[in-house]
């Protein structure tokens, strides 16, 4: 199949970016989107041009490294899919696709389609640790966890930190990411001792990184490759309200 790509090219953080158009004539419909970009980069290299820089690692949808917008939708038009798991058969022959990096003040472009997402790492760092004994493995049934709670915690823990929620949010808010990270520990017994501190620290870190605030548009949930629910944002709000109302120091 034939594909025309309009790709955001930017040499460095400071450089001004621009779109460049590339035509590919023999794209296999079974290729993933990133494999199609590999073919483009091979072609560019043979022509003596600079290949397009994009983030990727596992290529099986679990690492959270890949991600950019295809025609205005983070991770492309398929629901619940990372770019590496998006196949070319979902596009029309002769399609014109515009590729643009995540755009947020907290995510500066490093090169082409790669952005610096270390702001998300700092939000996680601010959450600190959980109090568990290290050493020999604990007895498996020492903390009984109801099945539903374990499932919900796992739903939140499915977050791979790709940053699509920030990219798709009209406010560039990192609320879905922060909410997922706060919730997967907050739901488990092991996460209780530091639960009230954690929510405050992570929200403070999120605000300090320059992300916007949540206005309940729901765009994050719509593009999330792990389909994490905005229900966790309400849970984060509940935790913050509770921590503010506690009589004791937290």
């Amino acid at each position: 199949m034939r594909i025309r790509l309009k790709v955001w090219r930017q040499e460095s953080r400071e450089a001004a970016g621009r779109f460049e158009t590339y035509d590919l004539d023999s794209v296999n419909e079974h290729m993933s989107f990133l494999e199609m970009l590999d073919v483009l980069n091979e072609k560019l290299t043979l022509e003596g041009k600079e290949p397009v820089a994009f983030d990727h690692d596992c290529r099986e949808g679990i690492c959270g490294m890949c991600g950019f917008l295809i025609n205005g939708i983070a991770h492309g038009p398929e629901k619940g899919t990372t770019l590496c798991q998006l196949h070319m058969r979902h596009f029309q022959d002769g399609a014109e696709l515009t590729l643009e990096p995540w755009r947020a003040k907290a995510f500066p472009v490093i090169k082409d389609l790669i952005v610096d997402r270390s702001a998300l790492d700092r939000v996680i760092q601010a959450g600190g640790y959980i109090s568990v004994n290290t050493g020999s493995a604990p007895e498996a049934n020492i903390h009984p966890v109801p099945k539903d709670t374990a499932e919900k915690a796992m739903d939140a823990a499915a977050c791979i930190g790709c940053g699509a929620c920030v990219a798709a949010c009209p406010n560039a808010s990192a609320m879905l990411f922060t909410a997922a990270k706060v919730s997967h520990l907050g739901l488990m017994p092991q996460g209780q001792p530091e639960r009230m501190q954690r929510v405050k620290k992570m929200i403070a870190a999120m605000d300090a990184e320059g992300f916007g605030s949540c206005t309940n548009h729901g765009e994050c949930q719509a593009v999330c490759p792990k389909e994490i629910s905005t229900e966790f944002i309400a849970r984060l709000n509940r935790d913050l309200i509770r921590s503010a109302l506690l009589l004791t120091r937290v």
Partner: protein
Amino acid sequence: MCGNSPAANPPGKPVEEFFAEDMAVRMIKTLTQTTVGQKVLMAVTGLILFLFILGHLSGNLLIFAGREHMNEYAHFLHEHPKFLWPARIVLLFCFFVHIVAAARLWLKNRSAREEGYTIYLPIETTIAARTMIYGGAAIFFFLLWHLLHLTFGVVGPRFDPNDVYGNVVRGFQNPAIAGIYLVGVACLCAHLYHGAWSLLHTLGLSAPEIDCAKKKAARILAVLIGLGYASIPLAVLTGVVR
């Protein structure tokens, strides 16, 4: 106190201050200095204003019961300043908090994406949700006009403080004035279409079992409120209420 080691708190992050003071200071700081806290302030004041809008509508619809009932109700309110003034002060305070928090969050949100997308295709959001700040500003100016018209009697046709019914009818018989009200009510309706369920979500009311019903119920209520308010100028324009 555990959890405050330098490794857990990267330098330069203002998190220590949330844990240092007594409950009142901590609560005020959480509400005014975090984005989520400011959203909670907006949700609580929004809920109070929403309840006022419902009460105000129920009073206004007395216009369909006739001149005597409407004027009697207005007279009743003015007879009880002990209740009227505290209510007015609470509402003014809510407006103030709601607007200040909205402005602060809007500025933060705008600065969070300095360079916009060339192509951006929203999937889930509504026009109502994306125009909250503009609709809110329009409602503010509409409210000023509404107070000048029917509370202070400064703008519009002849004003009689003892005949609320007559003031409303004389005002809405002018199509331009009725038009201003219809536009204002449309802005209010759109604002509530998103705001009424959004405030519940911000206050933490969410579960997969209720989320769909919550959204639908709030949206239906918003449309009904809009239709209720719009019915008054439309009834006067069409001559149903004279």
